[in-house]
């Protein structure tokens, strides 16, 4: 507001008293901190299993939505989490949350898949190596941990971002609203795409014989996934 000499006149307005956030519908689990995950499952595997990299490929069908908490870490790519990652997550989140007012919950199981390694410096051959360690497979679109309680997203986001950066796949901290917003924007992008040619359409009707150069999985993956990577910019 300009005063008589053209100088801005400072003024104090009415204080808008905002109500404090309502945390009534939140149920705390028995143990607010993250459970300790074993390096090796209780019954270690006897038989060495094949590599089966398809458990990394494509979108996740499990643990895509929130159950108990309000904020979490969303995986935007596929990868394997081993015991070191689990410890990092458990300790960082345990250090950053206040157990009296916040809680955290795992959304991935303990390492179950055995990974073999041959000893270093030997030639190829001689059979499959022994079991080295165990990992958990994570597909893109899956929640890794959930955090909830009497807290706001702005308080939780810094340490969740630090954890997400250290994971072997790209990940972002999300809240319920931000995840909903992400899904809504994706859907809107898909609907108002001005390009009449979409990957899905080309692959489904095998235009120009494109399926010679594509995989049969591309019918489901629809050009948004390549190997373990999730192509966020593609519609």
């Amino acid at each position, binding site marked *: *507001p300009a*005063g008589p000499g053209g100088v801005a*006149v400072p*003024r*104090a*307005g*009415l204080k*808008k*008293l905002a109500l404090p956030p309502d945390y009534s519908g939140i149920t705390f689990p028995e143990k607010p901190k993250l459970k300790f995950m074993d390096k090796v499952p209780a019954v270690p595997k006897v038989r060495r299993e094949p590599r089966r*990299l*398809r458990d*990394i*490929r494509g979108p996740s069908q499990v643990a895509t939505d929130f159950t108990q908490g309000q904020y979490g870490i969303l995986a935007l790519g*596929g990868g394997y989490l081993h015991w070191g990652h689990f410890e990092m997550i458990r300790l960082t989140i345990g250090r950053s949350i206040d157990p009296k007012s916040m809680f955290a919950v795992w959304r991935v199981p303990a390492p179950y898949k055995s990974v073999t390694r041959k000893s270093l410096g030997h030639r190829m051959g001689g059979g499959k190596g022994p079991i080295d360690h165990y990992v958990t497979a994570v597909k893109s679109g899956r929640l890794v941990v959930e955090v909830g309680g009497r807290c706001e997203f702005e308080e939780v986001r810094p340490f969740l971002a630090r954890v997400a950066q250290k994971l072997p796949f790209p990940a972002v901290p999300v809240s319920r609203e931000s995840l909903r917003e992400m899904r809504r924007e994706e859907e809107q*992008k898909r609907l*108002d*795409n*001005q*390009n009449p*040619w*979409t*990957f899905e359409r*080309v692959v489904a009707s095998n235009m120009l014989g*494109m*399926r*010679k*150069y*594509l*995989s*049969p*999985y591309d019918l489901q993956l629809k*050009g948004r996934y*390549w*190997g*373990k*990577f999730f192509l966020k*910019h*593609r*519609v």
Partner: protein
Amino acid sequence: WLPALQLLRHASKAVTRHWKAMNFQRQKLLAVTEYLAPRPAVPPRCLPRPTAQGHQEDGHAAVLRRQVQETLRGSRMVAVCQYNSMPDEDVVTLRHYLRKHDIHVKFVLNEIVRPVLAQSKYRNLLPLFVCRNILLVSPETRAREMLRVLKGVPQVNLLGACIDDTILSRQGVENFARLPPLEVSQGQTVAALSLLSSQTCSLLQRGPAHLTALLDQHIRQLQDVAGPTEPPPG
């Protein structure tokens, strides 16, 4: 449907840790099927700005607005003064002195008063409500006492007033204060109006009164003439 086995013989697996090189045909297909954003006929920056929607009505602001409306309705004199920061005890003293003359001191916020004034009949008082200000409201019009009190307080300056639906500037208020009180002026008006009617009686009696005076004068003259010639009786 299986791809030809020759393609996979010397290639890496489908899922790799590194970014696997894509077939050129696949790259071309991805380039063709990229997302194209919709372009509206009128760019959004040429359209008028959307005003803030969902402006929640603040209950506190509504209460203050209602209070201001009631004070404006129930007072004959409303004086707007500029207020510079005063010590608290001086504010209390000022309030006390003005209260003795039945003048109430009200602190108002411009952002609440401005919409109230714009809708009421006091539209022309809007330019006065800039900077920190206070309202002196009173059901009676005692401008002289108010000016006397305000003269002793240098931090409060009178900007303007609205007395009996008449907007007065600072000069106007001073002139108004110098006017005689209502009863005296009423008496003066009555006297001025009844001046002519009071003169009617003397006007009517002026002819015979003049004749009476002339006759009296004549008798005196006759008596003066006859007095020295006639001997006093007895």
